[in-house]
Each structure stands twice: as structure tokens, then as C-alpha cells.
């Protein structure tokens, strides 16, 4: 009798310690904390469980559900979007893994899904992932490629800019400066194709090795706290 009791207790402890179970509990807790209705919480948690079983990250799904609820989107519509996003994540995972490879990082899969939603192809995702020096570096690379594409560069050019910056030894954080650099060039009247060419050139107008050559009209971001010191000089309509 004692043996059965001990076995039951051990089984319960193992179940509680299982990552999938705790992840579902996290998902449920997060959604409940944001006030989503019980049925929607249950449905999204079920989708998240499927995602976990497929090796997909659950955070983007939870974030999407929370975003929809905050925007007062009807629950059935939220569930549809969350399910669609899981499919995007699945495709993105396939693109990241490619012909073979280890288990991809959730942040990379998430970034790949966003990038593919903005016009980056699965092949281009694979190219960026392979060019990254470290697995986690491909996440900012993919996000920057997606942002540059959204800024008007062709996806080929955007990916080429990112890969060249990686090969120049740019850090992950420095990669994230590229959309601002592109925006500054656009403000000076350059077209997307010219921006891509100049950024790939890495010359005076583009991003150089190491510190990067920020154009003179690109202000530093580390500004003072609100209401203190000089303001960001960027002009807004």
C-alpha cells in the first residue's frame, strides 16, 4: 500500500516538474492575469500545448491573444488569429531548421515568423540563420531584415545588408541600428535601392566595422530622461 502511495506521489511530482505542464500553467496564469475569459484561456492554452509539443515557442501566441483582448477583438476571432500564428511559427521553425540542425531557439523561430510575415522567404530565413555567428544572433538579424523590407528595400537587398553587417563583425545590438540608419538616409531623400546599396557598401554613408558610421543627422539614442536636457531632434508630423 505504501509503495503504491509513494509511486503515486512520485508520478505527481514528475508530472508537475515536466516542462510542458509548467509551461501550460504559465500560459494559463498569464492569460488569466490579463482578464481573458475562461473559455478563451482554455482554448489558447490548448493551442499553446500543441505548439509546445511541436517545439514551438508559446510566448508569441500568448502575446497575440493578449493583444487581441486589449483591442477588444471578439474571442472567436482571437482564437483564429492565434491558431494561424501557430501555423506561421511551424513554417518558420521549418525554415530555421532547414535541411537539418539542432533544436532552434524560440526567439529565433518567433523572429523568423515575423520576418516571413513581412516578405522574407523561407530560403532567406535559412540564409540569415546560417550567416549568424551564434544561434541567438539570427533573431535580431531576421527582425532587421524584416524591418528593412518594410521600409521599402527588396527582401534580397535587406537580407544582403544584414548578412554583410554580420560578416563585418557587427554585434547583435549594432545590427538593430540599421533600420534607423535606413530611415535617416530616407529622410535625406535616398530611395530604397540607393539606401540598400550604400548600406551594403559599408562606406561613409553606411555602417562601418565595429562602431559603425552613423550619418551625421542620426541622433544618439541615449538621451536624457523625460523633460530633461535636449530632446530627440527627429521631426514628427
Amino acid at each position, binding site marked *: 500500500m505504501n509503495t503504491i502511495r509513494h509511486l503515486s506521489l512520485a508520478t505527481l511530482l514528475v508530472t508537475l516538474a515536466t516542462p510542458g505542464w509548467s509551461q501550460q500553467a504559465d500560459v494559463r496564469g498569464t492569460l488569466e492575469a490579463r482578464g481573458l475569459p475562461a473559455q478563451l484561456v482554455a482554448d489558447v492554452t490548448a493551442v499553446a500545448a500543441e505548439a509546445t509539443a511541436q517545439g514551438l515557442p508559446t510566448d508569441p501566441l500568448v502575446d497575440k491573444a493578449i493583444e487581441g483582448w486589449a483591442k477588444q477583438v471578439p474571442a472567436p476571432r482571437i482564437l483564429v488569429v492565434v491558431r494561424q500564428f501557430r501555423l506561421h511559427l511551424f513554417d518558420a521553425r521549418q525554415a530555421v531548421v532547414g535541411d537539418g540542425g539542432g533544436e532552434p531557439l524560440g526567439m529565433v523561430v518567433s523572429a523568423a515568423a515575423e520576418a516571413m510575415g513581412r516578405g522574407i522567404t523561407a530560403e532567406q530565413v535559412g540564409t540569415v540563420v546560417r550567416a549568424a555567428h551564434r544561434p541567438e544572433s539570427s533573431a535580431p538579424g531576421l527582425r532587421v531584415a524584416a524591418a528593412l523590407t518594410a521600409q521599402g528595400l527588396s527582401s534580397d537587398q535587406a537580407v544582403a545588408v544584414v548578412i554583410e553587417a554580420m560578416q563585418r563583425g557587427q554585434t547583435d545590438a549594432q545590427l538593430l541600428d540599421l533600420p534607423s540608419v535606413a530611415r535617416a538616409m*530616407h529622410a535625406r531623400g535616398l530611395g530604397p535601392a540607393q539606401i540598400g546599396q550604400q548600406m551594403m557598401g559599408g562606406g561613409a554613408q553606411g555602417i562601418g566595422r565595429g562602431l559603425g558610421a552613423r550619418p551625421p543627422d542620426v541622433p544618439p539614442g541615449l538621451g536624457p*530622461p*523625460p523633460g530633461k536636457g535636449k530632446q530627440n531632434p527627429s521631426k514628427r508630423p
Partner: protein
Amino acid sequence: MNDDRRFTAEAHTYLDGAQTGPVSEADRSDADRLRSAVEAYSARIAAPGRSLTDAVMERVERRGKSKQPVWRWVFEPQPIRLRPIWAPMMAALLLVLWLAVGNRGPEGTPPLVMAGADTVFVQFRLVAPEASAVSLVGSFSDWQSDQYTMGREDGGVWSLTLPLAIGEHQYQFVVDGQRWVPDPTAHAQVDDGFGGTNSVIVVGPRGVVRS
């Protein structure tokens, strides 16, 4: 007894209490006086039946039992032992409390916060002269509409500066608590899947440039 006087062997024997022979009157007198002085001193330093430890502990206990009003302890100077490291730590704690609680600006300006090493101050602006309230909502606030209220400036410009983590962020403005509008100056506009448009900014270590 003079210092230069020396006791005879008989006097020593007398002081030892083993008188065997004759002792001069002068030696006997000095010896008796010395003996009585030694006995008095011994009695003073060692009370019969109580050790020094017992006496000290007795006084400590007596002091502990003495009833002093609390207010007297409060107003009397008390020794305080403090590690020097506590001084900067307490200063930092007070600064954080002041920033979190006490530094609210006018018209719902959010509390002043400090940017960390991997965060950058980003200014958001929206021209909406007809609006009576504008808030900033995004992935950085879990899409909660009441977290970042923007302040109104001249010319119907609504503005807010806040620290954002380096990386990509999606957001929208909420005008008058109802109308969700994208930022036309963002790096990109993306479909949010719900029929709306999210603005995207990519925050680099040196900030954000928008048109």
C-alpha cells in the same frame, strides 16, 4: 615601619603565626599593624561566599530588571553600529523610492524611470489637436492602454519619452480611449491580424530615427 628596617627571623616567624622565640616590641608592633592591614584588604577584595563573577552578574541582572519608560530610551542617546556599506545602499534605496513615488509630473506624466544598460530612451509623438487624451500602447506594455499616458504640448502635439529595451517593438496610439491609430513615422507598419495595423520600431543601442 620604616622601609630600611628589616624583620628579624623571629619577627617573620611571628608573622607566620608560629612564634617560637622572643620578638622585640618594635617588630611585634609593626608586624601586628601589617597583619591587620592585610586582613582588612583581603576582606574588601573578596567578599565571603561571592565570587567577582557573581557580583557582576548580580548587578547586570539588577540593571536589566530596572523599569525605565520607553520614551526615556527613545530620547536618550543610544550607540548605533552601522557597516559603512549600508550608507550608499540606503542612499540608492531612497533614490529609487523617490523616483518611483515622489516624482510625478503634471498632467499624468508617468513617473521618471532610469534606463538600464540595454534600454534606450525613445520619444513618441502624435499630432492630434482634436484629442482630449492619448495613450501609448504596445508590446512593451502588454498592450495595456492605461500604462503610458502621453502629455499634451503646444500645437496639439502629444508626446511621451520612455525607456525601451533594445529590440523590436510593436505599438499603437489610443486616442480618447477608443480609437487605435498607428504611428505614421514608425519604421514599419504591419498587419496585426485583427484588421488593424501595428507600428514597428527597431530600437538600436543608439536610439531610433523616424521620419
